[in-house]
């Protein structure tokens, strides 16, 4: 693959297809979109197959100076590779989810999706700071349109909220970027990742980036845009929002905040922990009382993303790798859960949990997939959800047993709200005649569910396929963070080799 600009091609394919969607007859837009996303998926797999695990840190690099130091610079490491793979894997699913349910302005709809794919891959592949910024911010515009034009009844409010939140963060981040480029004299991300910014500057640079990433993540308490956005977005929009857009915040932390500002990251770790602990407990409890399926899953996403942030700021390999796996897993599982909601929404046009019930009877196949993804969301071992959650929490335990304890309560609360949802939707009597008359999965839905299920299990049983490409990059990051690493609270002190309560067993007498 030497020298072949595969990354540029991956950006170009959806872009060209987006234009094509606008000009072809609107009934054919979906076919164009599906074809393009499949081509990009194939290219993504070629990318993965040719990625040299353990080789150079940055591979498939391309660089073309545009003007005045601003350049078209692309390249990926293992972390970016995995997120690109996730993106190209989910895109055909999104197109499939929109296949029948989008019945107005199809051309524009699919064009927006394809444009978003270009921009999302661009985010993960960009090696120039400003190129990243453009992709990062512009990537949201198609999402506003998807929510604002093809969304539900309250779509305007939802996309407005989404806009306000993200605007806040991005302005601060842009200013910080200017300062950094001025200081370091380069816009090259790999160079910046190794640049040692003065400690006092790191503090506010970190905060500026944090403002943007925390909203994208989203972290508590700047999460309230997410439930509204999900509820109003069409199914395809929800899948990509949960699947990929929420990963941009985590990617930002791992690409910028941690390597560029290690000292500030250590300094602000308690803030991250506090917000994450609050998120796990509070949003899980909120999820417990939801009556709208999409809102429930949206709130659960906030709780899961909190596991990502604690893992990232655990300053150790398990935490970092765990966070990456949680991101990948959540992308698949939350995407799949929104798809599951979409399947029944398409049939009954309501997200109210109470309008369903007893679906195991008339939709047994659907119930199996829904159960699998529910269990993956709960983090059942053998599914992708467990591996990431386990590693992240194990990582954070090394740092703080308190944080680990509070975040691990997520496994109880997660089980409670997900099983409560499953019970109300799939179990019980078929109390609603229209819900009872719904047909089981058709071939199209089957084709979307099976690959997702397969990857969820694959990642759960043999996560090595996904960990291996990232291993070297995580180790590099861990080494960079090592000097700033805070002390953990465990601090095991060796003993005498005799039981602490020796007198206890001594007067046991039986000896």
């Amino acid at each position: 693959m030497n020298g072949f600009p595969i990354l540029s091609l991956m950006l170009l394919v959806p872009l060209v297809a987006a234009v094509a969607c606008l000009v072809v007859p609107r009934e054919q837009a979906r076919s164009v979109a599906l074809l393009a996303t499949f081509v990009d998926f194939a290219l993504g797999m070629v990318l993965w197959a040719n990625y040299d695990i353990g080789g150079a840190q940055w591979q498939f690099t391309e660089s073309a100076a545009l003007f005045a130091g601003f350049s078209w610079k692309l390249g990926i490491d293992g972390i970016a590779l995995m997120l690109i793979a996730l993106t190209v894997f989910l895109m055909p699913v999104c197109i499939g989810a929109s296949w029948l349910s989008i019945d107005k302005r199809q051309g524009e709809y699919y064009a927006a999706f394809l444009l978003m794919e270009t921009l999302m891959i661009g985010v993960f592949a960009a090696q120039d700071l400003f190129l990243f910024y453009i992709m990062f911010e512009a990537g949201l515009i198609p999402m506003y349109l998807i929510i604002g034009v093809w969304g539900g009844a309250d779509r305007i409010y939802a996309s407005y909220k989404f806009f306000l939140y993200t605007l806040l963060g991005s302005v601060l981040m842009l200013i910080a970027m200017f300062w950094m480029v001025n200081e370091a004299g380069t816009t090259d991300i790999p160079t910046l990742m190794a640049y040692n910014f003065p400690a006092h500057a790191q503090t506010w640079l970190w905060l500026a980036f944090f403002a943007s990433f925390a909203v994208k993540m989203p972290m508590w308490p700047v999460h309230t845009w997410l439930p509204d956005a999900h509820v109003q977005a069409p199914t395809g929009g929800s899948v990509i929002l949960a699947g990929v857009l929420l990963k941009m915040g985590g990617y930002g932390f791992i690409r910028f905040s941690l390597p560029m500002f290690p000292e500030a990251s250590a300094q602000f770790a308690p803030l991250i922990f506090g917000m994450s602990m609050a998120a796990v407990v509070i949003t899980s409890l909120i999820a417990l009382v939801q009556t709208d399926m999409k809102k429930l899953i949206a709130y659960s996403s906030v709780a899961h993303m909190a596991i990502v942030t604690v893992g990232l700021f655990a300053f150790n390999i398990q935490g970092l790798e765990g966070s990456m796996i949680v991101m990948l897993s959540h992308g698949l599982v939350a995407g799949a859960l929104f798809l599951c909601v979409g399947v029944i929404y398409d049939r009954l046009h309501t997200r109210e949990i109470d309008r369903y019930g007893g679906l195991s009877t008339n939709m047994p196949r659907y119930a199996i997939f829904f159960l699998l993804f529910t269990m993956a969301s709960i983090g059942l071992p053998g599914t992708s959800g467990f591996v990431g959650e386990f590693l992240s929490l194990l990582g954070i335990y090394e740092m703080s047993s308190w944080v680990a304890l509070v975040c691990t309560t997520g496994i109880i609360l997660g089980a409670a709200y997900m099983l409560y949802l499953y019970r109300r939707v799939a179990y019980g009597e078929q109390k609603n005649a229209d819900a009872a008359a719904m047909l089981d999965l058709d071939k199209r839905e089957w084709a979307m569910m099976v690959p997702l299920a397969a990857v969820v299990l694959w990642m759960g049983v043999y996560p090595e396929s996904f960990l291996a490409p990232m291993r070297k990059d995580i180790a590099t990051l861990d080494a960079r963070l090592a000097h700033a690493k805070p002390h953990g609270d465990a601090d095991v002190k060796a003993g005498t080799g005799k039981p602490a309560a020796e007198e206890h067993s001594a007067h046991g007498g039986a000896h």
Partner: protein
Amino acid sequence: MSSILIIVFLPLLAAIIAGLGNKQLGMVPAKVITTGALFISCALSWPIFIGFLGGHAEASVTPVLDWVKSGNLDFTWALRVDTLTAVMLVVITSVSALVHLYSWGYMSEEPDQPRFFAYLSLFTFAMLMLVTADNLVQMFFGWEGVGLASYLLIGFWFKKPSANAAAMKAFVVNRVGDLGFMMGIFGTFLVFGTVSIPAILEAAPGMAGSTIGFLGGRFDTMTVLCILLFIGAMGKSAQLGLHTWLPDAMEGPTPVSALIHAATMVTAGVFMVCRLSPMFEVSPTALAMVTFVGAMTCIFAATVGTTQTDIKRVIAYSTCSQLGYMFFAAGVGAYGASMFHLFTHAFFKALLFLGAGSVIHAMHHEQDMRYYGGLRKSIPLTYWAMMMGTLAITGVGIVDVFGFAGFYSKDAILEAAYAKGTELGYFAFFLGIFAALLTSFYSWRLIFLTFFGKPRWEQSEHIQHAVHDAHGHDDHAHGHEEHAHAHHDEHSDGTAGYHPHESPLNMLIPLGVLSVGAVLAGSVFHHSFVSEGTGHFWKGSLIFAEHTIHAMHDVPLWVKWAPFAVMATGLLIAWYAYIKNTKFPAAFVDQFGFLYKFLLNKWYFDELYRAVFIVPAMWLGRVFWKVMDQGVIDRFGPNGAAWVVAQGSRAAAKLQSGYLYSYALVMLVGLVGAISWVIAQ
């Protein structure tokens, strides 16, 4: 040793085929595949166990696949076989195979059988993964896998709201324990740098006396780790505090109760403590907690068991109580006795449950013992099977001559507790003795209410329905009331004209096999499990202290005879109350109404938890949502910003339609700024 691969993965394969094939596959093929797989696994397991009995088999580990490598954390899928595993293998595969067979008969009217058998086989696979685990994470995989299967099987009749509630409760309460288990694994990895069980057990003694920071305090390292892991064990094994799910789990079909909620899954906690016994031995504090919790559960569940009227719930509380015995045995260091009781209990408790299933089957789904009576003559084979189970659980036997299974294992536990010689040991011993009295009482109460006395079937709605259905087709015109009434008059013997039938052969064979187990499992195996020089049987797979065995032999004679005495007393009281003077229970309830209510309502644990956890959680959820998210964050965040902007421009509508452009504008300004700055450099 590749037979272990077949033993473990054949049930998984069968579960997948039966589960995915489901109705296309057809009922009989699904049943043949799953049941066949289990009988093969069982047939392969016994030679392994016998190999260890003979003392010539060696522990082995069969690697399967890499699982997770992350930094210095590295664990694989692998199957470990040693004595402890071998014991569990025969228990699991034997009971599971018999339960599969039994279900052919018990579930014969069920339209959804492939799903049921797939779940049963899936459960067996997960349980086998648990007991063959070579590292803590695989044990946790099995742990959660059995939890999933338990959830699916409790909720098998998913149209029943009570079954769904029970299934969810089982999963969530278990997760509370899992919180402890997971924290325990994290801590263990932090301390030992590995999750490999042999490596941890080897290093554990060296950690004695070390301290660790935990939740802001400083504690003995091994105490923290063992207590965290034990919390996991408490959840799975339904120990006091985390026991509330087990009685509700009886909502599942009875074969499930026998396999999962009696013989195998609920003993996983005991297995875990025994497997990790070298860790627990380093922390006397943790062992004290194990002893205390075990003893308390033992007495708690036994007291509740005396008042329940649902036949399955009596046995469920009995299980809970017997698990308490196993734990305090482990707590006093008698791990061999603990495993021995686990082993014998699996046979006689599965027998009792399957026997109860046979009674329920005969009584047309009626589970309330108040509506049983006199069934001895109608279903004699079931009666005899239940008798064997009861003789085994109450520990009938004569010292040094012969006893039923429970006689050997329960007496070994009680002797070990006494022989421990500590206050806590005596505490456990006396609670255990009292619980043995209650065990005898509620077990015989069950027998007397069910099989003796006069039939009281006519009061049962289930029986009325059965009779109605049998007779009712030609006289639909009659009102239900009148019709039922007419039958009452016809049959003054209390049978309502109902004729219970003995269960079919496929249910009776498992009862027969398990009866043999209940009679012989103690006398045949006690030399291997708990007697002098059996260290060569356990081969270090758990801590087996010869001095404990010596001390057990040296206990006073009254200690050896005490279990027999209380067993006889319990039998006598039950006989008096339920055969001789049947008005006695009602009089007792009148006299001690408060006590009766307290026990009948299971010490009010469910009510307490509802008030302390469930209601506040829901309330908090609503407050966080409505007040915090919507009332504060949204109000002063985005809505506030909108309000400010709207005030400024006095054109909210313009904002709402124009925001995209304003965003694009900001982007543009930013970009222009960036570019001009770069150019200016």
